């Protein structure tokens, strides 16, 4: 999900920046509506750094290992701070580790951040059925985690396959989208299970950390 520089047409990069601008504006608008918007900044920033670090944890899948994206979990925990957090995380990835790129920052942030916001809305539904229940927290954690990565994978596949190789025929494009999305299905389930386990852990240890959700 780190589309590098040079691959996408400039119109797509620009559209990515426009959608990122809109999502950032929406998030900041919601944050500023809070009673004391500055109070949330240290919490959101340290959690942004913590998510960045947590994504270094590798899950063994022999013969290799995968790292998790955690955008669904990020949405569930950070709420409206999730989009700025992802934007900042991707900016760090681009300038420190050259994962992703500067011109594609908008596209990448949209691909990862909009599903994170959706995951937040999904996770918030647990308030309707009983937010103190560990079982429901787990269920909505799974849905948020799986949904966050699933939607992101689908968005990335559509953007990559439809905008990049202009000489691929329609059939090959469609097959490409299906293949890339299907390849993500086991990861989506893994991400969902992991997210569920983490939110259940937090619900046990520090339930107020999930207050945003």
């Amino acid at each position, binding site marked *: 999900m780190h589309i590098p520089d*040079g691959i996408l047409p400039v119109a797509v990069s620009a559209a990515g920046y426009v959608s990122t601008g809109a999502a950032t504006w929406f998030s900041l608008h919601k944050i500023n509506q809070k009673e004391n918007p500055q109070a949330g900044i240290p919490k959101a920033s340290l959690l942004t750094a913590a998510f960045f670090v947590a994504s270094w944890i590798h899950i063994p899948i022999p013969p290799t290992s995968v790292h998790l994206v955690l955008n669904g979990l990020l949405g569930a925990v950070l709420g409206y701070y999730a989009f700025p957090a992802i934007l*900042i995380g991707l900016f760090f990835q681009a300038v420190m580790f050259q994962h992703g790129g500067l011109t594609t920052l908008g596209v990448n942030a949209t691909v990862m951040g909009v599903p994170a916001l959706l995951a937040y809305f999904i996770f918030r539904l647990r308030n309707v059925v009983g937010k103190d229940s560990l079982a429901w927290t787990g269920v909505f954690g799974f849905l948020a985690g799986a949904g966050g990565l699933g939607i992101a994978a689908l968005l990335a596949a559509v953007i990559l396959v439809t905008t990049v190789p202009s000489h691929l025929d329609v059939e090959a494009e469609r097959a490409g989208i299906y293949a890339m999305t299907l390849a993500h299905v086991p990861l989506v389930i893994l991400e969902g299970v992991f997210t569920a386990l983490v939110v259940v852990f937090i619900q046990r240890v520090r339930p107020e950390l999930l207050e945003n959700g």
Partner: protein
Amino acid sequence: MNLGLDEHAHLGSPLHGWEPRCKFVGLMALIFAFSFVRDLRLLPAMLAVTAALYVASRLPFPFLLTRLRAPGFFLLFMAILLLFFSGSTVLVQVGPLALRREGLLELLPILAKFVSILMVGLVLFGTAPFLITIKAMRALGLPSILADMTLFSYRYIYEIGDDLETMETAMGLRGFRARRPSGRTLGVLASLAGTILVRSYERSDRIYKAMILRGYGRAPRRPDEFQARPRDAIALGGVLLVAVGFVVAELILRGFGV
């Protein structure tokens, strides 16, 4: 705190001395102009401008090589997809694989643009301390919540990374080995991730209280002290001219269909 990026931020070069706001605007304009280029004939000029900037920045060459390694896999995937599956004119046939002309012609600009943008990005973020660059972005209009969050997270990433390392060592000493994706492994790793989040959350609470005591959010923020000299503005003008030159050349080449 050394995050790799700041490693060469204090070398003396014209690019290190360039006023950070002008540098940000100029080099970002150049980066977007590069991403607009598609015509093969503009690629050598683009690479030449990039090389000149990199040499002028006095950043070491090995620094560039280590930075190119990370995104290599993605490019390899793109190269295979384009070279063997895009287009119909076969250049070379090796068994079931056919190297295609259209794919090659699409791949060349992608590679050139990727390398150029990465190098200009390195010059932009490698020739000034990261904190100064973020302050320059704030002075240019980056919303203060975003700037504060960026500076804050940057400050704590490696500290929290050290926490993770300590916890992983402790887990290893107690006999935990992540070998198979069993339910137990996943549960332990989820607790590890959860602990990282909970610890950071608790730490943020203490930090926020300490910041309040020091007046965070009350005193009007001191304006960032940047001052552009005439030569900074001239350099900005020059780089913007080059950026516009690439866009115009690309449009002319496309327009005439030559």
